[in-house]
């Protein structure tokens, strides 16, 4: 996968599958410390201890439709290629936290990519899981919370085309304001 936003979309799908009520995604850009970190945290079903150990194995998956599970291995590989680190913690019935970091200036670091597009796909998920997204740069922090938006919308589905368009402009505008990097 050649964009970090696609990795976020992919990992967050795992949270949706684990019936999470709230998925928190925190992106931090720290160019001065040569660090870009992403944390994805959910309050879903969590994993058993042996599943946590196996998750990094590309030949392990909890699905029955195929024999491989590449989402986490690919992310881990991308991180470690850029002198980053990968950490996965999970407790059954409490949730899962995945933290991954990249060398900000490293030549092999994937671009951040289309964050707005990925967030829009994530918020219209079928299980109605809420999403809290924060993006921190040296210019400021952008916070996007679907709980606030749902309260404001009062029952109008987030998948309504007009709402999607509005949210896209809102996310893009705010991300531009804090000058996120490529």
């Amino acid at each position, binding site marked *: 996968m050649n964009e970090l936003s696609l990795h976020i979309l992919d990992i967050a*799908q795992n949270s949706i599958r684990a019936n999470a009520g709230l998925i928190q995604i925190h992106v931090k850009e720290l160019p001065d410390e040569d660090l870009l970190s992403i944390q994805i945290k959910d309050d879903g079903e969590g994993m058993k201890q042996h599943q946590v150990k196996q998750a990094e194995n590309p030949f392990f998956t909890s*699905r029955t439709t195929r024999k491989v599970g590449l989402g986490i291995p690919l992310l881990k590989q991308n991180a470690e290629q850029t002198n980053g680190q990968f950490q996965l913690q999970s407790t059954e019935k409490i949730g899962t936290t995945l933290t991954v970091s990249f060398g900000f200036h490293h030549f092999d670091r994937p671009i951040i990519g289309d964050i707005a597009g990925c967030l829009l796909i994530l918020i219209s998920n*079928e299980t109605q899981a809420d999403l809290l997204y924060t993006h921190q740069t040296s210019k400021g922090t952008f916070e996007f919370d679907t709980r*606030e938006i749902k309260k404001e919308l009062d029952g*109008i589905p987030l*998948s*309504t085309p007009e709402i999607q368009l*509005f949210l896209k402009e809102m996310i893009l*505008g705010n991300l*531009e304001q804090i000058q996120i990097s490529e």
Partner: protein
Amino acid sequence: MTKVKSLADLKKLKEEVQSKIKLREKGDHPENLIQIKVSMATCGIASGAKDTMNYFIEELEHQGIDALVTQTGCMGYCYAEPTIELTIPGNQPVVYGDVNKTKAQEIIDKHIKLNELVDGIIPVSYKTL
């Protein structure tokens, strides 16, 4: 530079949208709607399912076709990603493989509008491991 949109702007939009939604409500049950499920697991995402999904949303909205575009997990056809499952009300669901933008356009033009099947259907004779 245009002003950055905030939650306050959302309130204004809400009233506009609410009246439109009331007009649409007639066939609001998902069974009466055309449903497109885009497979959105690692294999799908890596093959461009995000672009396919966005294309369906934009094109159907553009052409004024009422449809529900949602995401689903991996169906086991990783070799043929991006895959979609299309359900026309009253018919059996049909799974299409290798759905890029060109294929998506063909599916909208032929299958959705004229109810003609298009090449690229994956047979449903499918077993779990």
